[in-house]
C-alpha cells in the first residue's frame, strides 16, 4: 500500500542528493510538478535518467542539479535543441556534466531489464553507430546459440522514479492510459517510486481488464497534483500545451531569462499552480 502524501513530502522522503533518479514520461504524462518540487528542494549531484530529457531536465541542468545525464534524445520535442543542456555541454555552465548517451532501443531495453531484475539488456542494435565508440557502457555479446553478435547495455536501476498518471484508487492502485511510454518499467526498475496523479477515485470498477495498472504493492508514494504534467498532457484530462514548448526555446536561450522564468514559475509558486495552467486545455 503506497503512502498518500502531499507532493513536497513525497519528494522529500524519496529523493536525496547524489541519487540516480528518473522523471519519466514519453511526451505524454511528464511529471513536471514533481520535477519542479525537486527543484524547489534544491537537490545536488543527481544522475538524471530519461529517454527524452526535455524541459524538466533542461531546467535541472540549468539550475546546476545534475552531475550526469543518462539519455537517448536530448531535444525539445518538435521544436529543437535543449539550450541549458547545450550551455552545460558546450560551455560547462553552470558546470560540466557527464553524458551517458544511448539509443531509444537501448534505454527501453535497459529499463525493461531493470524491471525484470536482470543485470543487463541484450538487443540487436548500435550496428555501425558511433555511440558504441564513445560510451563504454555499450558492449557486444555473442549469442551462445547462434553466434550472432548483439548489443548489451547495463540494466537501469534508478534509486527513485517519478511518474505522472491519470488516477489512483483509494487502495493505491495506479492507472495509466494513452501513450504509456516507459513508465511502468521505470517504476518497477526503481528502488523507490513516486506517482503524481490527476485525481483519486473510489475504485477502478469498469476499467478494461488490460488497462495498464500498477498494483498498490508496486507503488511507493502517491501525491495528487491536478495538471501535474503541464505543459505535457494527460490523456482524457487536458491537451499538450504546444505553445509552452515553443516558448521554452526562447526562455532557455538566455541565462538571465531562464533565471527569471524559474523564479516566477517554479521557486515563487507551489504545485497548486498546475491546475490553473491546464484550465484552458481541458477537453470540453
Amino acid at each position, binding site marked *: 500500500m503506497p503512502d498518500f502524501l502531499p507532493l513536497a513530502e513525497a519528494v522529500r522522503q524519496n529523493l536525496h542528493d547524489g541519487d540516480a533518479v528518473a522523471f519519466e514520461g514519453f511526451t505524454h504524462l511528464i511529471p513536471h510538478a514533481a520535477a519542479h518540487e525537486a527543484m524547489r528542494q534544491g537537490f545536488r549531484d543527481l544522475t538524471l535518467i530519461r*529517454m527524452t530529457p526535455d524541459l524538466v531536465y533542461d531546467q535541472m541542468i540549468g539550475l546546476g542539479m545534475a552531475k550526469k545525464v543518462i539519455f537517448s534524445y536530448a531535444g525539445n520535442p518538435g521544436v529543437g535543441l535543449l539550450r541549458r*543542456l547545450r550551455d552545460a555541454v558546450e560551455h560547462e555552465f553552470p558546470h560540466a556534466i557527464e553524458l551517458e548517451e544511448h539509443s531509444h532501443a537501448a534505454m527501453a531495453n535497459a529499463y525493461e531489464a531493470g524491471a525484470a531484475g536482470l543485470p543487463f539488456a541484450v538487443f540487436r542494435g548500435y550496428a555501425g553507430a558511433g555511440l558504441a565508440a564513445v560510451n563504454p557502457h555499450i558492449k557486444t555479446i555473442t549469442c551462445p546459440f547462434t553466434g550472432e553478435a548483439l548489443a548489451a547495455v547495463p540494466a537501469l536501476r534508478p534509486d527513485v522514479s517519478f511518474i505522472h498518471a491519470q488516477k489512483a484508487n483509494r487502495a493505491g492502485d495506479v492507472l495509466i492510459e494513452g501513450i504509456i511510454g516507459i513508465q511502468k*518499467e521505470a517504476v518497477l526498475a526503481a528502488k523507490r517510486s513516486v506517482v503524481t496523479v490527476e485525481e483519486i477515485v473510489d475504485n477502478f470498477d469498469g476499467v478494461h481488464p488490460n488497462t495498464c495498472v500498477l498494483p498498490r504493492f508496486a507503488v511507493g508514494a502517491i501525491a495528487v497534483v491536478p495538471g501535474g504534467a503541464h505543459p505535457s498532457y494527460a490523456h482524457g484530462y487536458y491537451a499538450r500545451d504546444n505553445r509552452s514548448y515553443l516558448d521554452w526555446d526562447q526562455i532557455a536561450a538566455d541565462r538571465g531569462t531562464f533565471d527569471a522564468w524559474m523564479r516566477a514559475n517554479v521557486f515563487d509558486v507551489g504545485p497548486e499552480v498546475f491546475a490553473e495552467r491546464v484550465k484552458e486545455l481541458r477537453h470540453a
Partner: protein
Amino acid sequence: MPDFTPDEMMTIAAARALSNDDVCFVGIGAPSAACNVARLTHAPDITLIYESGTIGTRPNVLPLSIGDGELCETAITTVSVPEMFRYWLQGGHVTVGFLGAAQLDRFGNINTTVIGDYHHPKTRLPGGGGAPEIASSCGEVFITLKQSKRGLVEKIDFFTSFGHGRGGDDRQRLGLKTKGPTLLITDLAIWKPDPASKEFTVTSLHEGVTRDAVQETCGWPVKFAATLEQTPPPTPLELNTLRDLKARTAKAHGQAA
C-alpha cells in the same frame, strides 16, 4: 516560376515513394508531413508508426512531437515503448523507416548527435533517439532533408545512424540484412544509391532545378545518373492536401499559418 515551393516539392516527392502496403516508422518534421500526405492521397491504408508506441495512426494535423495525443487517439493500438522497439521494430515488422538528418554523407550515414568533436562539441544536437535501430531494423530507409553545404557534407562529424558506411557491401559485412538507405529526397532532386558503390546518385531533378543548383548545395562532387529524369510537379490534389494539412497544423498548434 512554378506555383509550388521547393519544400512542397520535397514533401510531395517523398510522399509518392510510400505505398499503401507500407508499414512506416515516421520521424518527426519533414518525414511526418510526407507520410501523412501519402496517407491522405494515394496510400490511404498505409500504416504509420511513431516511436511513442502509436501504430496505424491517422492524425488530422501534424503532431508537434512524436507523442502528441492525437496520434494515440487515432491509432489502431498504442503499445509501450519497449514493445515498440523490441517486437515491432526489432521484430522486423516495419518496411520503411523515414528519417531526417542534420548532416548526411554520400553513403546515407546520418549525424544528429554533435557538430564538432563528440566530447567537446561546437553544437550539441539532440542525438539519435530511435534512429540507430530504425536505420538497421527497417526493411529500407528513406531520407529527406533540404540541401545545403552544412547538411550534405563530405564527412559527417558523428555516425548517429549507419547507412552504407563507406559504401559497397559495408552493411553486409556488419551483419545487417536490411537494405539501408534506398532513397534520398531533397528540395531539389531525388537520389538513389548506386547499385555497386552505394553512393547517392541524382536520378531525377525537380522542375526548374539545374545540375549546378544541386552541386552548389552539396558538399561532395555530385554524381548524376546517365538518364536523368524530371520529377513530375505536384498535382493540384497533392498540393492542396499538403497545404490544407499545414494550415490545420499551424492553427492547432497556435502558430501563424
